[in-house]
């Protein structure tokens, strides 16, 4: 519990409207987009919504003095419980910090506050012909601070990488309230430890990211979208592999199985060919139409070779956008198929992708649980979704074993637990298996050095 005196101190910093403590308002900040149950409740004692880095810093000074847990939060769109205030205390919600501080055209860099929505940053840069590539499926509502804290990926990772590939510098409020600035606009920079990389993907456990400096690249002049249908997931996986081996690098290559296609069809009130068992959506980009055409031809040839049964190129911008909107909504649409959905985020070396997808199919059969499969075929990051009803007797146990098997399969082919969602709460039980004892010990040493009182986002990662 936070005493009235401390509450008043915090109100004096951010103003009374930006401190919420009613039962329902606290409940509103007790969950995110993960499958962490609502019970037992994870209500924070206080929701605090600062507007400036200075306010964040002063709140942290108070929290540090009284050893109050602080869990940073953006839009609450994370998939692993990273922003859930599991130990109570303060939910530090940064969604009022929405300034795009500077777009530096000469250096092709942009500085934004933590609460800026990903798509707003993208559009702001796009207006000037610059491209901010990281595009998590949630980009219309996720915020930059969360993207950095989770090192978010996205569809375009296959060609353009993930968030960390664009972070040049950060402004971070440390556990004691000190304001740290890392990195900068110099492209080459080896002065001291690479703290920028350390905080990127640290899930709010090492500091509160309040501002980020990103590098940008020129916006591709032309974009095209291709949709290919296959009889089996395996044919789809092989196609993507063949395309990559042939030296064609699509901006995105997304695969989805029959279950996903059916959800989409239901929403659009259309029917899908009973023969179709999987679909791959590909984005290509380039300098001009000729560049797109060359890629399209090579991809089409590879697809045919691997048994594609239908191939189409989106004819309009609108059609392309619709295809991608469907892909971005898949996760939530699939979640609605069953009372519970346990979504995973394993990531494997690119050449192991077809193998791990096959193994997921076997795991589904072995445990008698439907597992919908979709993911980033181009970069090896896949999201198996176990569709289940945890209220059924014995179901939880079976789901547990299936998850164990999925992780085992990922690690076995040289992959890892999480590609882009982070560890948070939901993958915590498995991290020792992935990192080993020395790995965990090193994480803990870093944590102890930066947050000796353990107040920042406690209870996460390990």
């Amino acid at each position, binding site marked *: 519990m936070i005493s009235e005196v401390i509450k008043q101190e915090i109100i004096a910093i951010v103003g009374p409207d930006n401190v*919420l403590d*009613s*039962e*329902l*308002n606290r*409940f*509103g*900040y007790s*969950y*995110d*987009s993960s*499958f962490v149950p*609502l*019970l037992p*409740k994870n209500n924070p004692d206080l929701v605090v*919504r600062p507007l400036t880095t200075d306010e964040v810093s002063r709140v942290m000074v108070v929290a540090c003095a009284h050893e109050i847990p602080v869990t940073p939060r953006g*839009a*609450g*769109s994370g998939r692993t419980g990273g922003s859930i205030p599991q130990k109570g205390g303060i939910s530090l919600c940064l*969604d*009022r910090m929405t300034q795009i501080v500077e777009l530096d055209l000469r250096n092709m860099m942009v500085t934004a506050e933590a609460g800026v*929505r990903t798509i707003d940053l993208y559009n702001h840069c796009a207006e000037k012909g610059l491209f901010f590539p990281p595009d998590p499926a*949630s980009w*219309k*509502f*996720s915020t930059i601070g969360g993207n950095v804290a989770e090192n978010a990926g996205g569809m375009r990772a296959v060609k353009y990488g993930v968030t960390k590939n664009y972070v040049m510098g950060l402004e971070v409020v440390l556990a004691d309230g000190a304001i740290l600035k890392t990195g900068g606009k110099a492209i080459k920079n080896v002065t001291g430890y690479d703290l920028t990389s350390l905080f990127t993907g640290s899930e709010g456990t090492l500091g509160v990211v309040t501002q980020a400096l990103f590098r940008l690249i020129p916006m591709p002049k032309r974009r095209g979208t291709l949709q290919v249908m296959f009889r089996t997931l395996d044919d789809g996986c092989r196609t993507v592999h063949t395309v990559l081996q042939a030296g064609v690098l699509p901006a995105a290559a997304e695969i989805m199985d029959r279950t996903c296609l059916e959800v989409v069809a239901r*929403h659009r009130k259309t029917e899908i060919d009973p023969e179709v068992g999987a679909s791959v959506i590909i984005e290509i980009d380039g300098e001009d139409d000729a560049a797109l055409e060359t890629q399209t031809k090579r991809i089409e040839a590879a697809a045919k070779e691997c048994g594609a049964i239908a191939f189409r190129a989106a004819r309009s911008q609108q059609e392309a956008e619709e295809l991608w909107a469907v892909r*971005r*909504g*898949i*996760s*939530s*649409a699939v*979640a*609605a198929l069953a*009372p519970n*959905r346990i979504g995973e985020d394993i990531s494997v070396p690119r050449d192991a992708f077809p193998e791990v997808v096959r193994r997921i199919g076997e795991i589904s059969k072995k445990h008698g649980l439907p597992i919908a499969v979709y993911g980033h075929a181009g970069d090896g990051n896949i999201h198996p979704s176990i569709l289940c009803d945890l209220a059924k007797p014995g179901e939880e146990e079976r789901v547990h074993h299936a998850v164990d098997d999925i992780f085992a399969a990922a690690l076995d082919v040289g992959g890892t637990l999480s590609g882009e969602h982070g560890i948070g709460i939901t993958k915590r039980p498995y991290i020792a298996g992935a990192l080993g004892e020395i790995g965990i010990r090193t994480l803990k040493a870093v944590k102890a050095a930066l947050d000796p009182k353990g107040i920042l986002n406690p209870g996460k990662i390990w």
Partner: protein
Amino acid sequence: MDKMKNDDLLREAGKMVSRCDRCGACLPVCPLFGVKGIEATSARGKNTIARALASGVLEPTEETLGVVNFCLLCRACVDTCPAQIPTDEAMVEVRQHLTDLAGGAEAKYRLVGGVLKRPGVVKAAAAALSILRRSGLNSLFPHGMAPEEYTRSHFLAAFAGPAALGQKAPPSAVTVTDKTKVAYFRGCGMEMMFPEAAAQTRDILRTTTRLLTKENVCCGLPHLAHGLRDEFLDLARQNIRLFDEADVVVSDCASCGATLKHLTSFFADDPAWRDQAAVFSGKVMDLTEYLAKVGYLPRQKTDAVFTYHDPCHLVRGQGITKPPRELLKAAGSFVEMKDADVCCGGAGSFHIDYPDAAEQILEKKRRNIEKTGATVVVTDCPGCLIQLAKAAKASGGKFKAMHISQVI
């Protein structure tokens, strides 16, 4: 209502929202989250509260009713939701549940509900509002419930200048057989707030058919929205009976139209009324939908520049966007505004209950209207028109707000 039936409401709401995976896609489109920024004001926040109530994680309190009432029922979230969770329907169920639990609707909703239940009283209220308007006592009336009406004759006087000459739209090519019995549904809002526009609707309809007019009762939406479900069902039965002889029932109010079109689902479990309700809902048409169907062309073409505000209950309630725009293009020139389909903040009595939030939402709407340079913002719903009239006033005369019947 007995406890079991009451628990059913909550269970039903729980079922609707159980498919929400809390992704957050609704956050940027929820107009209330847009002005408040607090989770419990968003669709995701309210769905999660409903889920928590249904599963016993949360106990209902006074705060709960406040949170579920703070919803425009605009369906912007439903439209954007990858799982199409019907937040609005869930909120209506939860409101009813909490209302029953508290032993009945709040006094003000009972009062409004009571007034709207009797047609005679609706007329009296309309007369009272008209006196208020004429006596200039508008400002005494809370939050603009008595908007300044800008009539069709004002409109023609302003826009029928020389530039309009020779630009008259060709005569309407409507052919409606004598057998088609077309009736007009008198909406309370139109009758009380915009009687001149309602009269224009009837005039337009009469150019296309021999119009049936009925002393219908309220569509029941205000009752449904505020925990008076039994009254809502009772009104629905009266209207179904009343329009038995009509083949088509035309509404010039988006909210009435949407409510009447959806009656089927409320009687799905009632064998005595199920079929009649389905037949009735099938007859209902929005004014612009009907006019498009019969090929109506506006009575004049002026040099007015229109923009159009999509009422939630038309765009998301009935999927109608094209007919009103086509009509406006034929009646003048048309400019599309940004976020035309975002709620104006009116939402029934929401703007009276939560004037500050409604005003903040309206402020965004006003800026979008002004950016088009249009001289008239047109809509198809008295609830929206109240809001837009306020926006017109706030714009200092940059534009007028009118019902579509007044300009076509």
